[in-house]
């Protein structure tokens, strides 16, 4: 335990991060300001969400962020919690990004909630312990505290502290995250989501996000794969292999999810899955989710055995893009089967001819999403540039 | 027929009967009056909640209601459960009444046109300015044409219409024209020719009901609608309509009958009932006249013949006939409401009345029941008969009367060619009336007062109505909103809405009569007045103008001064009290329970009692009419084959909807939502749509000889392939009807302006249209 760390340890300038990138990402985040102002002035009408699809791209982006955060936390804990030395190197970077993605996630959902401040109050004075959202919110709050402490200890090279905080973060993260799955999984009304599948699936997909993001941020820190120090190379090679493994598992999961949803055409589930396979979400599904999100990275890793870090980087980028759409598809597909038949007079909002409903994000929603993504990258680059994230 | 008495023998008096009261009776009560008036003024400003009984005025039903008022604002209008006539309901429109006074589009101040007609440029003026403008123009017109009848008065029913009629009499015109000939004139005529009256149907107790064309579940909600729905499981309900309307949803059997052939089915049913001996012999012998003639008359009208006409299978017609007789007297061929269908309508209605009569389903439980009323005390009001007055413009012999008939019926011997045989003197015949004005025959009519009616949207052939308005030198419209007619007027007077004013008591006649009234639920929100106040104010103004009285006698003026005194500052509550003074406790009941009635039981059999006489010439049920042959008409209903749309054309039928029965509620956003669309749509059968190359959701041009409209296409199995339809009251011309201005299509625009010449009713189902993709 070292108690006499200097501030030099905390801050260090990384010249690999050019100001151009900082400015660019800052500009992108400013784009989000448009959406924020629009909704503050004109209310939620500026969103594309409807009575039938009340959760839109802001929810899915929130999920994307928090899944990333959880994944980063889980993967990083391999090093300083579970003591796999090889992975200790990833600790600081993973945890700072976990913090930033979580904050950005919170930011996005605050824009989606009608009354984020009420939430802060009534979550405490009128909690409903039956509500998955309550647990999710609360646990993510706890999780945030843990990972902030964890990061502090990591920066201070307080390994014991980092261990405990990391363990706390790990447990809170897993709980929070499976609760996020449960937010969907507990909805009897929505057969596409309902069941224990989602909590498990969410953890698994968090691991993919985590590994992919770590591969990406190390490349950012060092400019290119060839610049990576040996230790990092080692860790990333290991991670790449894990990455491939997780991808394999999720492909397996997905195949069975689809088969069980198509076989015998179980009501509502079937229609939702068909919206993915052949319907309104099919391009998202096949191109982004299946190709970019799973098959391309999986085969890259399979053929390079994870040893080619450039290839791994490409695989990781492809996967992260795919995963963003995966979240979107998951959130939207579950709501596309209306709760009432869109018969004349039923006033089922945004109903299509085929009996399903539809959703497309509004410009304001998209601007907030892009802004949040940009802001997250900006913050990370800032951290990378000024904090001492190397070991 | 309508000759005026000469100046010598007229003895000056034209008695006018109305719910009004002598001046003397009022004077003593003057002080009480003031108190009540101011009390009412205060009440609506008071904080807190109150419940005020009154009555709806959105349609003719006038359902009694209780208004929940919170802090001076109407919160909700609730049905009055004492008011058995509405079966404790308020319909969608009645409910939306709570927002009527607050409607952003309503008229708030008197307006005088500043731009061109229809341009929409107005200046707000004070009531005094508006009155002066009106009085000046009226006097100018009368002088110019030396004829008080050069000013026409158009109105539609309502409790304040009486005062508009007073205004007509004050001005002294004979040219009043009212809504019945756009609605049920032929029905009244047809049934009256058989029974001396238009009866109601005892749907609550009927076991077998046939309804043809009348769309009771949709057009508007009456007691019959409700009874049909309530009896859904117990009653057999057969529905004949080219469209599968919501009434079809209630029906046990729906037959998409070929339009205009209903009479063939009725005659065939009569044929079956007589030939199979199923009629009520005793009843027929005792109460009817002309059965033997009828028996001969219908011999040729076999079900097989009727099948060819109507496309309803002969077996089904037989089944209907037998069921009808079997369930008698609890059988009803529904008398319907709006009956402005095809040219032979009066004879058709006669045949329906006859069908019910031969099975004895008259004035007995479950059959047709003559309406009764509660007679209210009224005052014979005396209006002057001036010198400068001429006969009704559409009354007596009209040499162009045949022009309004559709071609195919012109050779029919039972259809008058030079007059309307039974024209109502108060109502006129709208189509003929307008033609006469346009032709300036026999004299020019150049001024117009319009109360509550919107002829631009309700009289077929909108272009012609606009032309008529254009030919006017002066138009004054009184309404609560800027109707299309108001839009083309010179001066627009804003009436207080029905929730802001008193209306006199009124007996709703029916199988069980009941009296309603209106009182202000809130104070008037804007600078508006009731029709009563407007008439009184204008009369006062006229009194100040000597030029107005040059053709009147001194007493005339004195009577008018009395008239003003009768109403000026006299609260309606006192008038109502007087109206009800024959019934002790009635006023109290009215004020507390919102309505007054003696019994809610139906008094069956009054006309079947020994010595009772119907208001027909023989005093009996006239299966063969006595008066008709005298007027050169057929004694018995003769079927006339209607013309059918030529290849490539479709019959356009009109229809109503529970949210928009008339043309006054289309602008209400709540009702558009309830209707489910923001515009009306053309119903067209898939086969016909295919033929015209139309898909659901396309826009189409619907064209007739009267005009054309662009309308959204709704491809539906719910209509006959040869029949198309769209809803009334869209595609409006007034920009102040913001939600429906030029939205959707107007039926008035494309309807050809035919009428029949027995009752003078317009014919709204004689228009054939071409349909092209827009």
């Amino acid at each position, binding site marked *: 335990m070292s108690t006499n760390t200097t501030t030099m340890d905390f801050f260090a300038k990384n010249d690999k991060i050019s100001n151009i990138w900082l400015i660019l990402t800052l500009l992108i985040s400013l784009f989000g300001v448009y959406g924020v102002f629009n909704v503050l002035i004109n209310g939620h009408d500026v969103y594309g969400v409807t*009575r039938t699809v009340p959760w839109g791209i802001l929810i899915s982006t929130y999920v994307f962020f928090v899944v990333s955060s959880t994944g980063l936390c889980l993967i990083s804990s391999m090093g300083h919690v579970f003591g796999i030395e090889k992975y200790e190197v990833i600790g600081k970077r993973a945890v700072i990004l976990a913090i930033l993605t979580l904050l950005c996630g919170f930011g996005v959902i605050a824009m989606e909630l009608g009354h984020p401040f009420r939430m802060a109050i*009534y979550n405490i004075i009128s909690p409903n312990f039956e509500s998955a959202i309550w647990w999710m919110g609360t646990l993510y709050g706890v999780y945030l505290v843990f990972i902030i402490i964890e990061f502090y200890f990591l920066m201070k090279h307080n390994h014991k502290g980092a261990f405990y905080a990391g363990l706390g973060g790990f447990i809170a993260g897993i709980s929070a995250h499976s609760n996020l799955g449960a937010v969907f999984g507990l909805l*009897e009304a929505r057969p596409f989501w309902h069941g224990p599948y989602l909590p498990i699936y969410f953890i698994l997909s968090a691991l993919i996000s985590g590994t992919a993001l770590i591969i990406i941020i190390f490349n950012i820190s060092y400019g290119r794969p060839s610049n990576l120090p040996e230790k990092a190379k080692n860790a990333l090679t290991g991670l790449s292999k894990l990455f491939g493994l997780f991808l394999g598992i999720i492909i397996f999961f997905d195949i069975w999810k689809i088969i069980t949803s198509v076989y015998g055409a179980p009501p509502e589930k079937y229609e939702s899955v068909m919206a993915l396979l052949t319907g309104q979400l099919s391009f998202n599904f096949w191109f982004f989710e299946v190709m970019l999100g799973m098959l391309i990275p999986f085969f890259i890793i399979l053929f390079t055995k994870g040893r080619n870090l450039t290839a791994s980087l490409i695989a990781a980028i492809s996967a992260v893009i795919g995963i963003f759409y995966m979240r979107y598809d998951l959130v939207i597909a579950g709501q596309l089967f209306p709760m009432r038949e869109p018969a004349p007079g039923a006033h089922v909002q945004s109903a299509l001819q085929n009996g399903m409903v539809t959703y497309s994000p509004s410009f304001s929603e998209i601007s907030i999403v892009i802004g949040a993504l940009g802001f997250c990258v900006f913050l990370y680059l800032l951290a990378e540039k000024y904090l001492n994230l190397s070991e | 027929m309508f000759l005026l008495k000469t100046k010598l023998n007229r003895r000056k008096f034209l008695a006018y009967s109305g719910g009004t009261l002598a001046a003397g009776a009022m004077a003593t009560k003057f002080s009480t009056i003031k108190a009540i008036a101011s009390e009412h003024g205060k009440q609506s400003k008071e904080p807190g909640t109150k419940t005020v009984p009154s009555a709806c005025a959105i349609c003719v039903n006038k359902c009694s209601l209780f208004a929940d008022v919170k802090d001076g*604002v109407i919160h909700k209008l609730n049905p009055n459960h004492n008011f058995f006539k509405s*079966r404790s309901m*308020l319909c969608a429109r009645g*409910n939306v009444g709570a927002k009527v006074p607050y409607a952003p589009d309503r008229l708030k101040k008197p307006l005088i046109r500043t731009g061109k007609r229809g341009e929409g440029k107005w200046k707000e003026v004070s009531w005094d300015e508006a009155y002066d403008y009106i009085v000046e123009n009226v006097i100018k017109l009368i002088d110019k044409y030396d004829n008080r009848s050069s000013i026409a008065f158009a109105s539609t029913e309502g409790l304040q219409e009486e005062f508009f009629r007073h205004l007509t009499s004050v001005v002294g015109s004979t040219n009043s024209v009212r809504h019945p000939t756009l609605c049920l004139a032929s029905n009244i005529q047809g049934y009256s020719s058989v029974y001396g009256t238009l009866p109601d149907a005892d749907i609550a107790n009927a076991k077998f009901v046939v309804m043809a064309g009348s769309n009771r579940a949709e057009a508007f909600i009456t007691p019959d609608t409700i009874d049909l729905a309530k009896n859904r*499981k117990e009653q057999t309900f057969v529905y004949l309509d080219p469209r*599968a309307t919501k009434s079809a949803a209630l029906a046990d059997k729906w037959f998409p009958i070929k339009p205009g052939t209903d009479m063939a089915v009725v005659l065939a049913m009569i044929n079956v009932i007589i030939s199979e001996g199923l009629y009520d012999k005793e009843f027929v012998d005792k109460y009817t006249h002309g059965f033997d003639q009828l028996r001969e008359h219908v011999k040729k009208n076999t079900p097989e013949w009727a099948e060819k006409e109507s496309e309803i299978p002969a077996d089904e017609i037989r089944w209907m006939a037998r069921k009808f007789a079997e369930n008698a007297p609890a059988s009803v061929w529904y008398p319907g409401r709006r009956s402005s269908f095809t040219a032979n309508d009066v004879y058709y209605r006669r045949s329906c009345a006859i069908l019910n009569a031969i099975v004895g389903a008259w004035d007995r439980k479950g059959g047709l029941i003559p309406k009764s009323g509660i007679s209210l005390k009224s005052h014979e009001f005396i209006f002057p008969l001036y010198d400068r007055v001429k006969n009704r413009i559409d009354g007596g012999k009209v040499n162009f009367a045949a022009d309004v008939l559709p071609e195919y019926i012109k050779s029919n011997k039972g259809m008058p060619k030079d007059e309307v045989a039974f024209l109502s003197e108060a109502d006129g015949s709208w189509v003929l009336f307008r033609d006469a004005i346009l032709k300036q025959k026999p004299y020019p009519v150049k001024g117009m007062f319009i109360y509550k009616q919107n002829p631009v949207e309700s009289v077929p052939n909108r272009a012609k109505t606009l032309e008529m308005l254009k030919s006017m030198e002066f138009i004054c419209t009184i309404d609560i909103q800027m109707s299309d007619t108001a839009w083309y007027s010179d001066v627009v007077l804003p009436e207080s809405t029905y929730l802001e004013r008193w209306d006199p008591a009124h007996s709703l006649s029916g199988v069980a009569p009941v009296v309603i009234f209106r009182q202000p639920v809130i104070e008037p929100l804007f600078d508006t007045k009731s029709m009563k106040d407007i008439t009184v104010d204008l009369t006062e103004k006229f009194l100040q103008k000597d030029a107005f009285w040059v053709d009147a006698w001194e007493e005339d003026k004195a009577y008018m001064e009395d008239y003003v005194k009768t109403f000026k500052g006299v609260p309606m509550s006192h008038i109502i009290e007087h109206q009800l003074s024959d019934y002790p406790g009635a006023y109290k009941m009215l004020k507390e329970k919102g309505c007054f009635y003696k019994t809610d039981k139906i008094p069956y059999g009054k006309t079947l009692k020994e010595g009772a006489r119907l208001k027909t010439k023989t005093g009996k049920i006239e299966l063969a009419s006595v008066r008709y042959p005298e007027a050169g008409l057929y004694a018995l209903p003769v079927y006339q084959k209607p013309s059918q749309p030529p290849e490539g054309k479709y019959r356009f039928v009109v229809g109503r909807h529970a949210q928009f029965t008339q043309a006054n509620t289309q602008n209400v956003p709540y009702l558009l939502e309830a209707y489910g669309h923001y515009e009306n749509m053309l119903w067209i059968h898939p086969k016909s749509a295919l033929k015209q190359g139309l898909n659901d959701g396309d826009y189409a041009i619907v064209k007739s000889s009267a005009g054309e409209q662009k309308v959204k296409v709704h491809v539906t*199995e719910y209509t006959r392939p040869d029949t198309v339809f769209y809803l009334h009251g869209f595609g409006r011309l007034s920009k102040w009807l913001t939600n429906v201005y030029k939205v959707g299509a107007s039926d008035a625009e494309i309807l050809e302006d035919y009428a029949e010449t027995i009752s003078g009713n317009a014919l709204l189902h004689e228009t054939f249209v071409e349909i092209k993709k827009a």
Partner: protein
Amino acid sequence: MSENSRALKLAEDNQKLANKRKKAKEKWGIVLDTSKCIDCKACTVACKMENYVPVGFYNYRIWVAEDTHYAKYPVISRSFQPSQCQQCENPPCVHVCPTHASYKTADGVVMVDSKKCILCKYCMTACPYDARYESHTTEAIDKCTFCYQRREEGKDPACVETCPPKVRVFGDLNDPNSEVSRLLAYNEYTVLKPEKGTKPKLKYIK
């Protein structure tokens, strides 16, 4: 007072009333005989008036959908399916609400305390009947309250009261002598989506 503030006040008054009626013994329910429905929409408009539901095509607590069994000219069968919040005995919307904004009163009416609602819309995704909407007037989720404001006076809900053929009958399911109980005793009936386990208190006579 604007329409918005009247709506808010009504919502607040209903919470107070629910508090006051903490010991209520009734279990309110509605029995419907939809065969009588003529799709006149008196109920939907009455609801909007009574409860200050704002204008808007998708702002509604109650609806009347058309049920087309068969429609091939000339054989056509039409009927109507009026409905609203099912006032579930086992209401998923209440279970999922993080702040207890959605709750069930002692007499079994599911309501939203607009002040507590954070507009997470979880209840909207949880409700199997699409019975909820986001209200601009209360800035919270809004839904059928069985016209709770009328419980004190014992008046029928607006939609029940105004319906021309009286498709709906409102009453206390706990009271064996109520009309609703009797209707259920003597008629076969069903509920919507029974498989969801929500135990609706809207019962449809077959």
